[in-house]
C-alpha cells in the first residue's frame, strides 16, 4: 500500500517534512508543491532518489535547482493514480 505524500509548506518554516520523513515507507513517494519545493535546496532528500517529485511550475517560479522528477498537473494526477493512496499534509 504505497503512499504518495504531498507537501506544500516550506520545510524551513515548520516540521511537516521532518515528520513525513519519519513515517515514510520504503515504497512511498514524496511530491513537493508550493513552498515545499524549497526542500530541494537541502540534501536531506538525497537518500530518496527516484521517489521525490516536484511540481515544475512551483520549482521554476522559485528559481530552484531541482534534483527531483518534475511533473506538471497531469503528472500530479497520474502520480495520484499510480500510488495506492495519497496523504496530503494540510
Amino acid at each position, binding site marked *: 500500500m504505497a*503512499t504518495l505524500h504531498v507537501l506544500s509548506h516550506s520545510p524551513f518554516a515548520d516540521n511537516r517534512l521532518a*515528520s513525513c520523513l*519519519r*513515517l515514510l*515507507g520504503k515504497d*512511498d513517494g514524496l511530491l513537493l508543491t508550493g513552498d515545499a519545493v524549497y526542500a530541494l535546496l537541502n540534501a536531506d532528500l538525497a537518500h530518496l532518489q527516484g521517489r521525490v517529485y516536484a511540481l515544475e511550475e512551483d520549482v521554476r517560479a522559485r528559481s530552484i535547482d531541482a534534483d527531483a522528477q518534475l511533473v506538471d498537473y497531469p503528472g500530479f494526477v497520474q502520480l495520484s493514480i499510480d500510488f495506492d*493512496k495519497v*496523504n*496530503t499534509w*494540510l
Partner: protein
Amino acid sequence: MAKSLLIISRQAPWSGPGPREALDIALAGGAFDLPLGMLFLDDGVFQLLAGQAPDQVQQKDLTANLQALPMFGVDELFVAASSLRERGLGSTALNLEAEVLEDDALAALVDRFDQVMTL
C-alpha cells in the same frame, strides 16, 4: 468491506480548527462503523495532556470527545513516541489510552490503512 482510514492529528489543541475537525471525522466515521485509526503526531500529542483548562482561553474541551472515541468504536489510537520525547512528555501524562509507537513502527502503521489523512 469499508475502506479503513487513518487520521493523523498533528496540531496543538487550540491552534485552529484542525484538531477538532480531525476528531469530528473520527467520531462521525466511528458512528457509521468505519474502520478508523488515529495517530497523534507532533504538536497533536498536546491534545492528550491531562489537566487542560480550555475555559481559561474561551475554548471548548476536546478531552471529553477524545475519551468518547473508544465508545464510538475508534479504539485504534496511537501516539508517536518521538513526539512525546521531543516535548518532554511521558505517556503517563496523557489522559487517553493509546499505543505509543516508535518511529520505525509508523511507516507500517500508515501502510496498513487503505486511506490516510493528515490534519
